[in-house]
């Protein structure tokens, strides 16, 4: 099994720079044959909704929606913090491809064994 890598991301439009760079790094890990997961929590969970990232484009970077798409196409997974998701009234039927709403057990399972985690 491939080595794992996690990017923890807690921003969306409140810090589109961090949201974008988080997915750039996630792409780097996925492109380097790591089983990579982006963990979205607090405001970051908004990125899990189809269409939300469509107007996020940081200067010098690809559009965020394109970065998310290429990440998932490279085998990346997006875990979405369940209580953060529910708190904001987001919709499960509007999840972007590759995203799944998870609880702490899935996060702990993924990180078990010393998986590195990079935070934004």
């Amino acid at each position, binding site marked *: 099994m491939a080595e794992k890598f996690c990017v923890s991301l807690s921003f969306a439009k409140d810090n589109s720079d961090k949201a974008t760079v988080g997915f750039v790094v996630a792409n*780097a890990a*996925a*492109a380097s044959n790591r089983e990579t997961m982006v963990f979205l929590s607090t405001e970051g969970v908004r990125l899990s909704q189809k269409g939300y990232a469509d107007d996020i484009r940081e200067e010098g970077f690809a559009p965020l929606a394109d970065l998310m798409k290429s*990440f998932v196409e490279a085998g990346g997974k997006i875990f979405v913090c369940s209580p953060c998701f529910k708190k904001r009234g987001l919709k499960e039927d509007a999840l972007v491809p590759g995203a799944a709403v998870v609880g702490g057990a899935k996060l702990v399972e993924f990180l078990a064994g010393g998986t590195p985690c990079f935070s934004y």
Partner: protein
Amino acid sequence: MEEEGPAVAAREFAYDAGDLSCGELLIELRRRMLSLRPGDLLAVTALDPAAPLDIPAWCFTTGHALVFDRPPHYKIRRRRD
């Protein structure tokens, strides 16, 4: 079991990455390498200032061979699966 066929000549492709950097560059390299046959070459031009460190590191991590390394020009041989 299938018998191994005659050796197939390696092909060479060119990719101008411009100033793409970090994950954006690597995800493109990955995509392009996956479309090649083992042993094929990808001649890459990459202008990003981090590319001279990033491309060798990516090759090391993924198992592809960096056979030419003179920034901004690189040549990567796709690994044998």
